[in-house]
């Protein structure tokens, strides 16, 4: 990686620029390369996981321009100019995000493989519904499959994080707040 944050220079491909977790990044990769692979292989952000490769399991969920997307279904060219947040961008200065704290305390993570995607879905939900009902939590997480927990402790974790965020204003970097209907 050079000083400009360029991960890999390949003269064949034009640069695609976007920000990840608040940092400007530029990649020279085939434009149809999946955002998931760019994050994992080119930017070495392996927190984002692949579960199915067809947008069913949500393990690869990231937030892009204030939308929750399955990064396995996003060709990286669509990320040109986008603001992206991955699980690595949740904790700030070594301090866990309220959602991470809540998942830790309430047993929201078991094997951990769905957890990064689940956290991003939960972050997206709380960004738009700071006080979600149980039905809203269920709907907000319906695109993310967890095979370990039966979801109960994930719902509790999200609810607990919402309460925690109420008592302490969120410290997460503010994303562009344009709401895109899902």
């Amino acid at each position, binding site marked *: 990686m050079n000083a400009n944050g360029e991960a890999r220079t390949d003269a064949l491909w034009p640069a695609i620029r976007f920000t990840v977790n608040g940092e400007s990044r530029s990649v020279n990769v085939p434009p149809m390369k999946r955002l998931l692979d760019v994050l994992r292989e080119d930017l070495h952000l392996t927190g984002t*996981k692949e579960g199915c490769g067809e947008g069913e399991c949500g393990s690869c969920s990231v937030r892009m321009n204030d939308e929750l997307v399955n990064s396995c279904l996003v060709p990286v060219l669509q990320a040109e100019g986008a603001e992206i947040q991955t699980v690595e961008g949740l904790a700030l200065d070594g301090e866990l995000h309220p959602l991470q704290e809540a998942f830790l305390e309430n047993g929201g993570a078991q094997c951990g493989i769905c957890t990064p995607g689940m956290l991003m879905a939960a972050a997206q939900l709380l960004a738009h519904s700071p006080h979600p009902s149980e039905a809203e939590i269920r709907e907000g997480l*319906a695109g993310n499959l967890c095979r370990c927990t039966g979801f109960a402790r994930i719902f509790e974790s999200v609810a607990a994080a919402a309460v925690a965020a109420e008592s302490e204003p969120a410290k997460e970097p503010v994303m562009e707040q344009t709401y895109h209907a899902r």
Partner: protein
Amino acid sequence: MNTHATTRIVGAPVPRKEGVDKLVGRACYVDDMEREGMWYGATVRSTIPRGLIRSIAFDRRIDWSQFTVVTAADIPGENIIQLIIADQPCLADGKVNHCEEPILLLAHPDKHKLREALGGVKIEYDPLPPVFTIEESERQDPIVWGADNLLKSFLLEKGDVDSAWSRAAHIVEGEYRTGAQEHLYIENQGVIAEYSAEDGVTVWGSLQCPYYVFKALRGVFDLPEDKVRVIQTETGGAFGGKEDYPSVLACHAALLAKKSGHPVKMVYDRMEDLAATTKRHPARVRHRTALDKDGKLLAMEIHLDTDGGAYATLSSTVLSRATLHSTGPYLCPSVRVRARSWATNLVPYGAFRGFGAPQAVFAMERHMDEIAAALGLDPVELRRRNFLHQGDTNATEQLMREPMFLDQLLDRALQESDYHAKRSQFARENARNPIKRGMGLAAFYHGSGFTGSGEVYLNSLAGVDVTPQGKVRVLVSNTEFGQGTNTVLTQIAAEALGIEYSDVIMAAPDTDMVPNSGPTVASRTSMVVGRLIERACLQLIALLCERAGLGAPHTREEFLAACARYRAAHGELSSLCRYEAPPGIYWDDQKYHGEAYGAYAWAVYVAQVAVDTVTYSAEVENFWAVQEVGRVLHPVLAAGQIEGGIAQGIGYALYEKVVLADGRMTNNQMTNYIMPTAEDVPPIHVYFEQIPFRHGGYGAKGIGELPHDGPAPAILNAIRDATGVSFTAIPLLPENLYAGLAAHQPVEEPALP
């Protein structure tokens, strides 16, 4: 000896040991790893269910010199995946016995080129007639395995079944079927293998049982113990699916690594994982039951048959557990269980949470409701009249010597679920509502640890040592894959040693570093391995008292100082313990007689369902789970095990169907193999009654598998209550509900003119 009246750390909701790593995205799963100069591997698989390989041709448009190609001829040792029976080749050699059977392996530095090359290998076959079902296999024509298609059979007998029928006031028969089920761990199977002449084979992988993989690699490579090393990476779910299959994948990647001279990563994509790896055994269970006029069981005759797939893998032990769970938590003087596992030309079935018990429990507990209906008894009352109690003997004539309280579990389940009131309310409302509601229950048990003398044969070794930095390190080959091994064993060590949770670390699950404490299966980790760690810690304290001046009682600081003194004087400090069977254990492996399990966890589950008679969908609206699993070591993790198991059980009952066509799975995608989502799982109410078990780690019994046993029968019993129709097969999809309800629709009489 361990009454554990009060504990500091055991029983407390300490944070999951590796929790922060998982939450910040730092936990390293195998696909997150790279090795210098790493290549990728792929598998060419059989496209037919059974036949002889006539030819293998390589497309000339591909430059094969860029690839490493491995066939059975490249195997340095025996072409067998060592497990129980030596029947499964590592790579097919001349013939194939199921679709997706691995034939040839490819490696290349670019995984995209690899994908293209897979299509460039053309295999021609001379097909042989295949067998796809239990019924086809038991006809024994053709013979596709051994002399008779029979992978394994058991006969369990107690009392005199044959004379019971003439004395019976009631005889009730039924046949019950369960389908295959996919584990659907969210992390697919994957490994990285390296090979060098000096170090031999090293494998990193997503797996449950490092020493199973170790054994398989030794056989395939014909290498001594010190030339094989297996390291578990963070594992994204397993549920039994990573018990036996990783041995196959590890051998494949290691063969490619040896031949290519590069580290090789093989990570299946979802379609390959679904199509090619093991699933839960489908089963057919036939019950014939004799009862007296009061509804007391006189005799049970059970024929339990499973589909084992093309190779034996774990079918014998799955069948064993099915046999031993087939008679339910009931007292019955005469029992005969004939159990058989049949070979078919399907992908071999394997371990899956519950390991045969969910199939057997589904049949028994559905059958109990059919008996209740036949006798005009309330299902609750029928069960209550027949429950086992302390001092009774079960089907293997094992004396129930530990305290057991099935009646209390039942009472609690009825009370928490408001079972009787809801049943009457639904019965009133259903008549005029297109949505029919019902309540159903299941009473069951799950044996903890290996069956019979299994734990003695495993001869597990586990313990702790103290690092130069003064940390106590737990030495086990038992692995973490979400269920909480790391956390619970750390709690036990910290508790026993009188130190803090953060003073204890887990050794890497690496066969070069940890002793063989047995596989991470069979609900054995907390009970059996936990107890070994507890004993090893007490032994360590005794050593420090004797040789390093530690007093009793001691503070944390005194303990750590004694460790430092011992290390300064004597060097390394460790304490290992070997498994010792509780006294008085007797088991006859031939007659299936005696102490089948060291301990049993007991449960009563209640499901509330709603069946929509317009859309024919069935939904679980509420679920209550009351269980006794010995001491609960961690309340949050324990409840998480129960909830997760129940969600999988709901999927087993209502959603998850493996669709096969000509021996191939046709719905091998998450798009059409459907598991419960956040919108489908009902509120699950979990209750533990705690009766510490003397021989388990801090009083624990097994917990992990239990919750998968009960949901399916409870749900189908509830559907019977809701609709009046008895469904006997799972998965019960809307089309099955439609067919069953339509067949029972009262025919409307044409109005007379």
